[in-house]
C-alpha cells in the first residue's frame, strides 16, 4: 500500500466522469435498491446507494463531495422508509467523508483494497445507523449483526463487479 502525500495523490488520480454519470448512477442505485427487494425478499443483502457513495468518494477523493453524496443518498433512503429522516443520512454522510479521506492517502486502484474498504465501510455504516437510532434517538431496535455482515459481504461482491464497469465511464485525458 503506497503512502503518498495527500495533495500529490489527489492531483494525480482524481477520477472524472461525464456529468450525466453523477446523476444517473446514483438515481439508478436508488431505484434498484427500492425495487429489487420485491423480487428478492429478505435476501436483499446489499445497499447499492452505499456502494455508489463509496465508489465516487474513493474515486473523486474529495471529502466535501463524498459528504454531500452520502448525505443525499442517505436522506433519500430515509425518505422512502417509514423511519425518521436523517438516520441513514448521518451514517452515509460520515462514510462518504471517511471514504474520500482514505482515498486521498492510500492507493485505491487495487481491487483488494477496494473490496476490503467496501466491507469495512459497510459495517461502519451499519454501526452508525444503530448508534444514531438507539443512542441518539433512544428508540428500541432489534438488531441482527449477522444480517449486517451479510449486507457487507453483498456490497463487496457488488463492488467487485460494479467498480470496473464504472471505471470505464471515466473521462480520460
Amino acid at each position, binding site marked *: 500500500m503506497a503512502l503518498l502525500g495527500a495533495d500529490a495523490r489527489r492531483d494525480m488520480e482524481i477520477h472524472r466522469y461525464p456529468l450525466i454519470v453523477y446523476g444517473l448512477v446514483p438515481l439508478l442505485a436508488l431505484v434498484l435498491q427500492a425495487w429489487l427487494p420485491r423480487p428478492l425478499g429478505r435476501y436483499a443483502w446489499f445497499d447499492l446507494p452505499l456502494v455508489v457513495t463509496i465508489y465516487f468518494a474513493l474515486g473523486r477523493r474529495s471529502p466535501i463531495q463524498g459528504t454531500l453524496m452520502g448525505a443525499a443518498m442517505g436522506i433519500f433512503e430515509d425518505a*422512502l422508509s417509514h423511519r425518521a429522516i436523517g438516520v441513514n443520512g448521518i451514517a452515509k454522510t460520515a462514510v462518504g467523508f471517511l471514504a474520500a479521506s482514505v482515498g486521498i492517502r492510500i492507493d485505491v486502484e487495487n481491487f483488494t483494497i477496494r473490496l476490503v474498504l467496501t466491507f469495512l465501510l459497510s459495517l461502519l455504516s451499519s454501526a452508525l445507523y444503530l448508534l444514531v437510532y438507539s443512542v441518539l434517538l433512544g428508540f428500541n431496535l432489534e438488531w441482527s449483526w449477522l444480517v449486517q455482515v451479510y449486507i457487507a459481504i453483498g456490497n463487496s461482491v457488488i463492488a467487485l463487479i460494479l467498480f470496473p464497469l464504472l471505471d470505464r465511464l471515466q473521462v480520460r485525458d
Partner: protein
Amino acid sequence: MESFFVRYRNLLVLLAILLAQIVGLAVQVRRINSTGRSSLDPHDGPGVRLIRLWAEAIVSPFERGIHGSKLGIQDIWNDYFDLRNVRRQNQDLQQTIDRLRLEQASLLEDARQGQRLQSLLGFQEKYIYSTVAAQAIGSSGNLQSHVFYIDKGSLEGIKPDMAVITPDGIVGKVRDVFPHSAQVLAVNDQSSGAGVILTTTRIRGILRGNADGQLMIVGILADERIKPGETVLTAGGDLIFPRGLPVGVVEKVVRDPERDAFIDVMVKPAAHLDQLDEVLVITSLQPRFSDQEQKDIETSEEEKGSEAQAIKDQLKASQINAERLPGLTDPNAPPAVPTAGAAPSQPGQANPAEPTQQPPPKLLPTLHPDRFSPGAASTANNGADANSPVGTTSKPDSQTAQPAPQNGPGRNL
C-alpha cells in the same frame, strides 16, 4: 480567519451537514410517550412529508415502468405460451366454485343467525364491504424498514390506517398516502402491531416483526398448550383488521429473552410477505354483506335449491321403482298394529316421510342374569322391599337368578 475556513473546509462542511440532520431528527422525534421514551411522531410534519413525497415521486415512475414491463412479459408468457393443462385447471376450478357455492349457502344460515344474535346483544360485527386491488411496485430498500409501495393512492380512495390483505392473509396497513401511490407498513416490521388470537387455545396477543423480519406474537404468558401448527387469526381489537382474517400458523415457541414468565410465539405468515404482487386494500367495513356478496349468496341459494330439487326427484324415482319391484314382505301377513302415538294413515297411501313402524326388538335372554338384568331389577327391588330394611342389599331371588332357557339362534353370548 480565511485560512481557517480554507484549511478546515472539509471538516466544517461535514459538521454542518451532520448538525443539520441532527436538528432535523430532533424536530421529528420531539414527542415523549407514556413510558418515558422518545418516539417518532406517527404523523409526518409538512417538511418531512414533502421530502417523502419528492423521493416517492422520483422513484415511483421508474418502479412503475419496471413493474409494468415485468407484468407485460409475464402476461405474454402466461397468456400465449404457458397454456398447458389450462383446460383441465379450468374444469377443476369450476368444480371448486360449485362446491364452495354450496358450502357458502349452507354456512349462510349460521351467518344470519350470528348476525341476529349480535344485533340482539348490541354487538356489531364488521364485514369487509369494499376493497381496492393494488399492485406492490416498490419497497423502502432497507431491511430495517419493512414498508412497500402500492400503485393506488388518495385519488383511488386510499386513506391511512386502512388494512391491506391478500386472499391468503393479512399483509399490513396503509401508513402514508400520496396522490397516486401509498406506503404500506408490513405486519413483519418491528414497529407494526396487530391484535391476534390463537384459534385452539383462544389466547390473545400482539403480532409484530423481529429484526429478521419474522412474525412473532409477544406478551404471552408461558403456556404449554400452544403447539406448532395452531392457526392464528386477527382478533379485531386493533381497529385496523376485521376479526377472523388468517394471519398464519404457529411455527415455534421461544422464551422471551427479557422476561422469564413470557414467551414469544413465532408465526409463519399465511401471506407471502416477501414476494407480494397484488394486494387488496380494505376501504370500507360495514355490518352487512356487500352487494357482490349478496349476489353470490343468491346464486348459491339458487344452486342449492336446484340441487335439493334434484335430490328430491331422485328419491321419488327410487320410491316408484321400489313400488314396482317385487317386495320382500308377505302380502298375506296381517297388517301391523299402529302404535298409540302414530297418526293413522290412509290405506294404500305411502308416506315416505314417515318410516314404517317396526315392532320393538325382543330382549335376548342373558346367560348370567343379576339384579341389573332387564326384568330382574323389579323382582329384586320387590324382594328388598319385602324382606330387608330400606337401603340394604338383598340377594337376588332364586327364581330370577336362574339362567334363562337358551332357545333360539340369537342367544346372548
